């Protein structure tokens, strides 16, 4: 019997064939971690507790300072300083002031097809856009720091075949949440989502990052895409690492298979209080909107800002609304400055900010009771943007732009 992409990645890592359900100790090609109280600072304390002075293979780890950046409170700056010191002491490469880790690691060329990576954070699944297997292990990052290995059960696979093409105004975010709507929030429970098909190949790498980033909201372990020439072009510009594509075998066993015709997808919103609640935009059309946010690891790339400008170029957001535009990395910030997008966004009324995770979890751009946000952040749970009494709807950049243009929830297909 053949193998799925994730089975191949994990088999390659282990040096022997594994299949869904097998439990084994893997040595990740890279273990990633970010500054956050209770994460990197805890790992240092836990290593001390285990009487392990340092990591054995520092080249297999990368740390990122992308939260609380810039720090608005001395206790958060303390976490940054601890992170720096810990990284330096262990010889671990630290990325600071370059943007959101999940984005940075790809644009700096560290991720190629077939790699296996782990992180605490579930959104690391977005590295699957390049054909890598990136798995959230939650607090088990310490296992890798202490032993170089982590115990993982090889997940089964939900194969999603995408056909057709998206119409203008409809995005990868609408595609993912349409899948949640059609398959249910447990549609990929404990599985890896394998995206493929001609529809996937019509989508940009930025789009594929969105698809993979949100995997946890189908209850998946991770997500991975088939690779094609678009992946090769991305990698040609970012890395010199050797790689080869990882394709599923024709006779691979899938726990589930699903086909979605992209031309049938319409704009959707994910309504409060959870990522389970995907609704057609029509359900909320006309509702007042106060704030829009385009950024986070899930969005905040060229494709996202292009979608915003497709609606807002030469126009202005409605009086009384606010739009936070936060590129996912410093490189992207530089790109949108150079290609003129930044100026156009500012002319449209957007507040441009420094790349950081902070808008996504309410450290910056905090809301207050009764306000309504439309966000490309990863999550819409109450309190995520700093106030449990504010309502967060996640949506595509197109929908956010169209809604802020009108000051109310608007189907972007009606404003072109």
């Amino acid at each position, binding site marked *: 019997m053949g193998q799925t992409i994730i089975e191949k990645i994990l088999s390659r890592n282990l040096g022997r064939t594994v299949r869904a359900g097998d*439990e084994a100790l893997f040595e990740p090609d890279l273990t990633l971690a970010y500054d956050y109280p209770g994460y990197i600072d805890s790992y240092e304390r836990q290593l001390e507790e285990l009487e392990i002075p340092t990591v054995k293979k520092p080249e297999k780890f990368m740390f990122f300072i992308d939260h609380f950046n810039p720090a608005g409170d001395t206790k958060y700056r303390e976490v940054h300083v601890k992170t720096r010191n810990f990284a330096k002491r262990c010889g671990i490469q630290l990325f600071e002031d370059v943007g959101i880790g999940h984005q940075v690691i790809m644009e700096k060329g560290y991720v190629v097809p077939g790699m296996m990576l782990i992180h605490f954070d579930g959104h690391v699944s977005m590295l699957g856009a390049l054909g890598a297997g990136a798995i959230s292990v939650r*607090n088990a990052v*310490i*296992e890798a720091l202490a032993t170089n290995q982590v115990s993982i059960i090889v*997940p089964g696979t939900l194969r999603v075949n995408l056909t057709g093409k998206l119409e203008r105004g409809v995005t990868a975010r609408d595609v993912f949440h349409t899948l949640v709507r059609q398959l249910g*929030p447990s549609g990929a429970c404990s599985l890896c989502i394998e995206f493929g098909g001609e529809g996937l190949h019509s989508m940009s790498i930025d789009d594929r990052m969105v698809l993979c980033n949100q995997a946890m909201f189908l*209850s998946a372990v991770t997500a991975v895409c088939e690779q094609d020439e678009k992946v090769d072009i991305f990698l040609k510009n970012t890395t010199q690492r050797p790689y080869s594509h990882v394709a599923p075998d024709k006779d691979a066993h899938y726990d589930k298979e699903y086909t979605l015709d992209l031309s049938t997808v319409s704009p959707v919103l994910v309504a409060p209080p959870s990522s389970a609640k995907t609704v057609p935009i029509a359900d909320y059309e006309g509702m007042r909107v106060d704030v829009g946010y385009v950024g986070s690891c899930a969005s905040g790339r060229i494709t996202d800002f292009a979608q915003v400008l497709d609606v807002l170029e030469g126009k202005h957001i409605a009086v009384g609304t606010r739009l936070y535009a936060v590129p996912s990395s410093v490189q992207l910030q530089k790109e949108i400055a150079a290609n003129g997008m930044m100026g156009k966004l500012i002319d449209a009324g957007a507040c441009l900010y420094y790349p950081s995770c902070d808008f996504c979890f309410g450290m910056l751009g905090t809301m207050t009771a009764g306000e309504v946000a439309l966000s490309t952040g990863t999550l819409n*749970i109450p309190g995520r943007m700093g106030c449990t009494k504010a309502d967060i709807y996640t949506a595509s950049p197109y929908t956010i732009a169209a809604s802020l243009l009108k000051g109310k929830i608007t189907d972007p297909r009606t404003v072109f």
Partner: protein
Amino acid sequence: MLPKINGRVAWKFEEPNYDIDNIIGVENIKLSDIEQMKKVCMTDYDPDFISVVQDGDVLVGAENFGYGHPHYVAFKALRALGVRTVFAESFNPSFYKGEVANGVALIEVPGILEAVERWSTVTMDWDREEVTVDGKTVLKCSHVPQRTKDLVECGNLINYIREKRL
């Protein structure tokens, strides 16, 4: 040795895709004081929960228990109140990884939701991977991963690394 599990069902969550942050309320997910956490734990379901729950009690959940963006506070409170086991139809993988690493026994048992009422007693047979409800109904568990058994036996991730991996 794996701990003996023979506990009363302190609550049965019937909702699929249950978000465990609701156990303490989303406004409390940043609490740091354990007494405060205990005080708000489960009060939206049973205002007297803290006084009726006993050490060794268990919870029962539906499909994909732990969906969402689980924070650790809810189970910190539950562990402090003596709840260290959840039987559910299935678990969300993110919640599962995080909480098993804290030594909580998360056991998948298809059919458990129908089989129990609040205050039923559920007994776990680790060797046979079966549970018995009120001494009568026997249900087969899904395979319990070795990692889960090791973590439950060791009590937490650090003990597990020290005892099994170094």
